[in-house]
């Protein structure tokens, strides 16, 4: 005898909703709280290491959007090219990570900052120093297994919020 047809289903549903009422809500109150991001996230912003970069512009060639612009100058005395300008228009960037995969000198990384919104469109065009790694712009281990070894073993979904 199936009781779902006799209103028991409604009673079950009512208990489910009332139980949800007394559990902790899942909402994250963004400016006061923020989600803990796993260190193993791929991330979707670009971090540039100026020490390793040779200015070969492989990244610029591989970029499907063509938003990376590399300007180099020849340094005859040191027998190498110097990168004068490394510019990414992040407004057009689709975060595909092809540049990171293509870079032969480990100079590009994906990074995961929490707040990447800008007030003006012009601020989206990021040049040299803005792209360097820092405390806020940490490198993720995407396509860099040597970085992945040093990361803590954690899942992508951390359940805890951080209060500010």
């Amino acid at each position, binding site marked *: 005898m199936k009781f779902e*047809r*006799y*209103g028991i289903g*409604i009673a079950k*549903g*009512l208990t*489910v*909703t*009332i139980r*949800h*009422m007394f*559990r902790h*809500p*899942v*909402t994250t*109150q963004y400016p006061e709280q923020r989600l803990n991001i796993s260190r193993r996230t791929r991330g979707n912003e670009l971090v540039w290491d100026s020490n390793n970069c040779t200015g070969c512009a492989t990244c610029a060639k591989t970029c499907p959007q063509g938003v990376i612009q590399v300007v180099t100058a020849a340094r005859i005395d040191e027998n190498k090219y110097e990168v004068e300008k490394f510019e990414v228009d992040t407004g057009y960037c689709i975060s595909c990570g092809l540049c990171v995969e293509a870079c032969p000198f480990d100079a590009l990384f994906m990074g995961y900052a929490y707040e990447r919104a800008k007030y003006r469109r012009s601020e989206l065009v990021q040049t040299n120093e803005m792209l360097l790694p820092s405390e806020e712009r940490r490198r993720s281990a995407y396509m860099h297994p040597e970085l992945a070894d040093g990361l803590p073993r954690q899942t992508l979904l951390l359940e805890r919020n951080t209060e500010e």
Partner: protein
Amino acid sequence: MITSPGLNLEQYRQILPPDWPGGFWWHWLVFTIIIIVFVLLLVMGYIWLERRGMGRMQARLGPNRLGPFGLLQPVADAIKVLIKEDLVPTNADKIVHLLAPIVAFTPTLMIFAVVPFQNGALLADLNIGILYVVAISSVSTVGVFMAGWGSNNKYSLLGAMRNVAAVVSYEIPLVLSIIGVVLIAGSLSLNQIVLAQDIPFILLQPLGFLLFFIAGCAEINRSPFDLMEADSELVAGFHTEYSGMKFALFYLVEYAEALAIASIITTLFLGGWRGPLLPPWLWFVIKVIIVFFVMVWTRTTLPRVRIDQLMALAWKFLLPLALINLLITGIQVLAWPDALPWGVIFLNFAIAVVLVLLWSKLFKLGWGRVEV
């Protein structure tokens, strides 16, 4: 002043209840203000309760930015909607379009004229109180239909037609389940019905309460019966073309109707203002809020029904059960007027469970198909 042809003013004064202070107009003024304040305050409380309660049941927080616990959110909503531009469609029937929200709102407010807040504390102790409620609450349907017609929009008209169809269908089980209460109480006056409830009638009339609750929810188009204004699927049904203050009035009507149904359920089934310790009016407000909470609870739980399911529920489920409930109540009132209350309570609960199970077994939908 209301005078019938045979009465002069002095004779009219004599038929008024003696405890009315300072005559009719003072009474009228005081209670009109009380009713309007009561309705507006509780509607705001309801909106807050619904949004917060629904949020928590869906594991969200609900509005929590304005004031403590988001208590000022309804005020902010009201201010927002008041300063919006009032748009009227070019081809709309302007007068009907303008009058519709007023026609919908006024009867809803008028229902509270006969709802007792305490013993005898009501605007007019009509001896046909519940009949008046049934009659006047149907008038706001005219406002809904005017809104659908006046907007000159086929979707508004469709929504209004469905709304009218639903309200007319659910009126019948609603009234039939009221009659059971009236039979036990022996009076149509709401104050007398409350005075007759030494035991709340929900215990004597469990089936009647269930039917009245379902039919009431459908009557005021609350979820799960809100398919004609389904705010998550359609724009708004009959008030698609409304904006600004007129839209605010329709929004107010929705919650004022919920408040009215909750007040009537409280008065008819839950013992109205009666209760120990606390002052009577506080008991009334508490019970009204509890009934509304149950409405929010069912709204969160149940998915929306289709139009054929809506009609089938009214005509194949609620109507027969309401008739049987009426028959059983009539027999009980006639045969054992002084029966042991606890025996009758047990019997009625058993009858309600058996009938609901039996009718669930018999209840079949046409699955929306017609064989030709």
